[in-house]
């Protein structure tokens, strides 16, 4: 077993001008968050009885979950199908999923009116509720993600446990524990990996079921009984573009050589996946004859057009061209478009399509909501940056001395 | 033997019950009610009278005049622990007078079988929590009765318009004022010009005042079955209802079948003037006389002779000359009419029959003028 790439903690310095900008955005978000907890949801958001859900659910949660799909799609292709080629992108994808889902959970908590009861669904069940299913799956999946991440933590600390001061006498003990844990995890990891994929499929689709119950309140362009399928397909389709986008961004930001070869072969999957999604979406429209709504020109249909044309059809065409797939720039733009398309889709499903019967005017996210959403994204990026500096996540192009198996290194530390 | 007795007995019982039914039928029949107002089926029997639930809009058999009812009624049937309002004083007389213009007594007394007037509370339960939902409870029934009209013409009607607050200090004075209270005099229009769009002449000028003062019609002769809201409307301006049959009210007196042009004209017509249309002035003696006391032959108002005797029989012993404004003195009262009125036109008087030329009418009078 050869590892051409070996994940290593990065040594680049943390602060750059961009990081400071992100920190400012994060701080701004945190201030509004504080306001939300001190003065209530009404004070910060534009939500009301007509529009109970805004971008905190539509973007932070729904789009967040979709974009974290890279975690399970890479796990499926890398671990379950044992395609070792993709090993190097599994860890970054896992970290994104981990952070993504953590922030999904946090966002849900922020949006919950009675956030201190967020644990209620664990003991109070309503099997009829799509939201219950989403909630439970996300909770379990989040746990699974943390477990999947554990080996990275153990790998980082085994042989390097260095507790401060008086605690240092436990160094050895902790070290042994970590080694035991690592061994145990290694044996059972497949359970969690499969569980992760199953859970992802379940809640990605159930996220689509969420809005079905809104029935006629939802615009027919989006309201369809196959919403769960569309959500699942689109989540699968956005998984790889997300990984590509991240990998390219990270390598650029850390000044590494982009892993074009891996990414290129990964990008071959995207066009078929997007294609399937598009066929399902268009097919559904044709069967239910909802295209008649496209004859009117208003903000709703325009947003639908943007979502489908710019977010699906254009990148689909781009990913079909080998030239695009081979150029870093092409890959980056096409991936960004897919991501944009899916974010639009989630936004449209949860916000554009939702037309409450008695609303006098339509919902526009408030400054507070936007600030919090942007703040979360900024914090996520910052944490990602921090994590890859602490833990061996990103693979650095191989040097001969490092191309040993992970057990070889650890064995040395024993 | 036994069997025959049994059969006889049976027959006897049957005939009894049949006669009983016939009797009650007879009573019903006297009342001139449509069977369908109470029974749903064609042949109701005693065992299965198939009565309809509540003949809300159908049954009214007894008509009374407004003065037969009470002047006012105190409504205090509904009592709760803490009454917010005083009992309601209802001006029955006023309302019954008004009702003549619309549905009559039955607009409120909708279930009014022979016998005593049925009180609301005899059918409508005072308890709102009940099993029979087919009629509103008493409180609902009262309020609906009032609000059906009051609300339909004024959505702004307030509780305090009928209910006095229990907490209000002022002693009630409305009761005393009530008997004299009646519907305020309706301001009647002088004339209405209808644009009918008819070929025979677009305009019909209707002189409302003439029909009342000249032709002595009662309000209810034309205005029957009208809802209060026709005059009292939520909307500022009352629009005149378009009659289903435009001639409905007119044809009772006018020939609307063959004679169009007497009403339908190209321009507004002038008020009715007997002198202009017939050359016979009504001013002097006939202003209070109804049309038909002269125009006795039905079907037309023409053809009368202007001669007095074509109507008046002055030869009558009892003729009181005073009605002309001239009371004859003792000497002249003994005369025959023709002694002075030598022509059939009674306004012409000749004194020559008895007197010399120096005595002429009206320089000298045969009596005293009023």
């Amino acid at each position, binding site marked *: 077993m050869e590892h051409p790439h070996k994940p290593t903690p990065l040594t680049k310095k943390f602060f750059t001008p961009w990081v400071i900008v992100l920190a400012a955005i994060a701080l701004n978000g945190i201030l509004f968050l504080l306001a939300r907890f001190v003065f209530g949801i009404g004070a910060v958001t534009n939500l009301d009885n007509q529009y109970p859900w805004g971008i905190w659910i539509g973007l932070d949660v729904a789009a967040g979950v979709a974009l974290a799909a890279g975690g399970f799609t890479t796990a499926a292709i890398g671990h379950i199908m044992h395609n070792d080629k993709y090993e190097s992108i599994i860890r970054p994808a896992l970290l994104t999923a981990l952070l993504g889902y953590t922030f999904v959970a946090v966002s849900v908590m922020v949006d919950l*009116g009675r956030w201190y009861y967020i644990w209620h669904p664990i003991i109070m069940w309503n099997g009829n509720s799509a939201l219950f299913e989403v909630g439970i799956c996300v909770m379990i999946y989040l746990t699974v993600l943390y477990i999947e991440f554990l080996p990275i933590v153990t790998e980082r600390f085994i042989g390097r446990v260095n507790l401060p001061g008086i605690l240092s006498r436990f160094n050895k003990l902790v070290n042994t524990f970590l080694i035991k844990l690592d061994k145990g995890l290694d044996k059972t990891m497949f359970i969690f990996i499969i569980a992760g994929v199953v859970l992802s499929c379940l809640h990605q689709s159930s996220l689509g079921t969420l809005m079905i119950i809104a029935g006629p309140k939802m615009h027919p362009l989006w309201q369809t009984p196959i919403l769960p399928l569309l959500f699942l397909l689109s989540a699968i389709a956005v998984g790889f573009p997300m990984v590509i986008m991240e990998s390219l961004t990270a390598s650029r930001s850390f000044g590494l050589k982009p892993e074009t070869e891996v990414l290129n072969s990964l990008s071959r999957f995207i066009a078929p996946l997007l294609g399937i999604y598009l066929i399902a979406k268009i097919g559904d429209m044709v069967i239910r004859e909802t295209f008649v709504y496209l004859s009117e020109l208003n903000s709703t249909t325009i947003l639908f057009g943007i979502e489908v044309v710019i977010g699906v059809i254009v990148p689909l065409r781009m990913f079909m061209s080998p030239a695009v797939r081979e150029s870093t720039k092409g890959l980056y733009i096409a991936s960004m478009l897919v991501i944009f398309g899916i974010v639009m889709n989630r936004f449209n499903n949860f916000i554009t399509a939702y037309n409450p019967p008695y609303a006098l005017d339509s919902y526009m996210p408030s400054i507070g909501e936007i600030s919090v959403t942007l703040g979360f994204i900024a914090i996520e990026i910052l944490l990602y940056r921090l994590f890859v500096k602490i833990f061996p996540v990103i693979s650095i192009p191989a040097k001969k001395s490092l191309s040993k198996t992970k057990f070889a290194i650890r064995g040395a530390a024993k | 033997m036994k069997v025959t007795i049994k059969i006889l007995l049976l027959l006897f019982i049957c005939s009894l019950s049949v006669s009983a039914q016939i009797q009650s039928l007879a009573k019903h029949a006297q009342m001139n009610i449509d069977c369908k107002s109470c029974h749903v089926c064609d042949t109701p029997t005693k065992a299965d009278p198939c009565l309809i639930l509540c003949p809300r809009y159908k049954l009214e058999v007894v008509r009374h005049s407004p003065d037969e009812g009470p002047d006012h009624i105190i409504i205090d049937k509904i009592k709760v622990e803490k009454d917010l309002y005083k009992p309601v004083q209802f001006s029955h007389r006023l309302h019954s007078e008004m009702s003549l213009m619309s549905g009559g007594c039955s607009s409120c007394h909708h279930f009014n079988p022979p016998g005593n007037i049925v009180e609301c509370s005899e059918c409508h339960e005072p308890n709102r929590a009940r099993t029979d939902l087919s009629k509103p409870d008493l409180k*609902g029934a009262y309020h609906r009765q009032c609000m059906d009209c009051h609300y339909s013409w004024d959505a702004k009607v307030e509780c305090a318009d009928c209910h006095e607050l229990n907490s209000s200090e002022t002693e009630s004075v409305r009761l005393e004022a009530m008997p004299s209270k009646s519907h305020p005099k309706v301001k009647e229009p002088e004339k209405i010009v209808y644009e009918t769009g008819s070929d025979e002449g677009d305009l019909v000028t209707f002189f409302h005042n003439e029909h009342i003062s000249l032709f002595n019609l009662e309000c209810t002769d034309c205005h029957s079955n009208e809802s209060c809201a026709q005059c009292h409307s939520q909307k500022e301006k009352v629009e005149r209802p378009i009659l289903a049959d435009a001639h409905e009210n007119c044809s009772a007196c006018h020939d609307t079948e063959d004679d169009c042009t007497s009403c339908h004209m190209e321009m507004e017509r002038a008020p009715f003037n007997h002198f202009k249309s017939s050359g016979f002035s009504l001013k002097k003696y006939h202003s209070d006389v109804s049309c038909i006391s002269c125009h006795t032959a039905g079907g037309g108002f023409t053809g009368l002779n202007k001669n007095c005797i074509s109507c008046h029989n002055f030869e009558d012993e009892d003729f009181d000359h005073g009605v002309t404004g001239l009371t004859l003195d003792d000497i002249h009262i003994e005369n025959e009419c023709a002694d002075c009125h030598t022509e059939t036109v009674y306004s012409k008087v000749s004194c020559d029959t008895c007197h010399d030329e120096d005595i002429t009418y009206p320089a000298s009078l045969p009596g005293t003028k009023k």
Partner: protein
Amino acid sequence: MSQNRRDFLKTVAAIGTSAGALSALSPNKVKAKSPENLSEERMGVLVDATVCIGCRKCEWACRGAHDIENGNIQDYADEKVFETNRRPDYDNLTIVNRYESSDEKLSNVKLQCMHCDHPACVSACIVGAISKKKNGSVVWDTDMCIGCRYCMVACPFQIPAFEYHKALDPKIVKCDFCDERTMEGKLPACTAICPVEALTYGKREDLLIEAKRRFKNNPDRYYQHIFGEHEIGGTSWLYIADKDLAGTVFPKLDNRTAPGVSESIQHGLFAYFVPPVAVYALLGGIMWLTKDKKKTEGK
């Protein structure tokens, strides 16, 4: 390696059984909350918009019955409120709106939770805090509620309101069919006070009969349709009026139950946990096979 494989199989089997156990447990829970077995005895209210006079006494009484500051009853005569189309809110569980009816006459209609026979809110609630009771009322347990507001998204009548202004302990609020009062044998506050009995409280069945009786006796007075008889699978509150209320006062709804589609999808995905377990087994199989192949190749 064979050791490994046996482990693998064992664990897969173990997960399978535990999932099975879970599924055996959950359908019962699901059934307990489901309103499938609707009681014949369930109550309802017939709202006759042709009778309502817009006095808003019901608003006053409803507030009073729910410990909401309701002020002086005389102030409710203020007609100005009719200028806007109001909606039930946390401080007013029911409201009366005025609308222009067919012949340009003004009519009034009282709105509150419809107490659906197949309530979307009950199906949606993540913790099952909302339930449909035998007597027809749809009530909720504030202590369970986590404030996710999914019931508000689900409700076709946009009824549940949320106390957005509260930072701590905000609650979902809606008409509860005066649950406390009816349990004491009293009438719902609004139906008790209505001066004209525009609100008739009774068994839903009887109300339907009564509504049809009114249609028959007064064909001119009514638009011959009971809103709520079939809409959205039926509601406990039924409306009759002089015009079609769907599309103006109420949204246009078809007769399928609100949670029908989503629940069948939901149950399809989770039918006794079979699909998830099947996927799990399938993936496990793939993983095992590819692993096996690679190991052999490695040798």
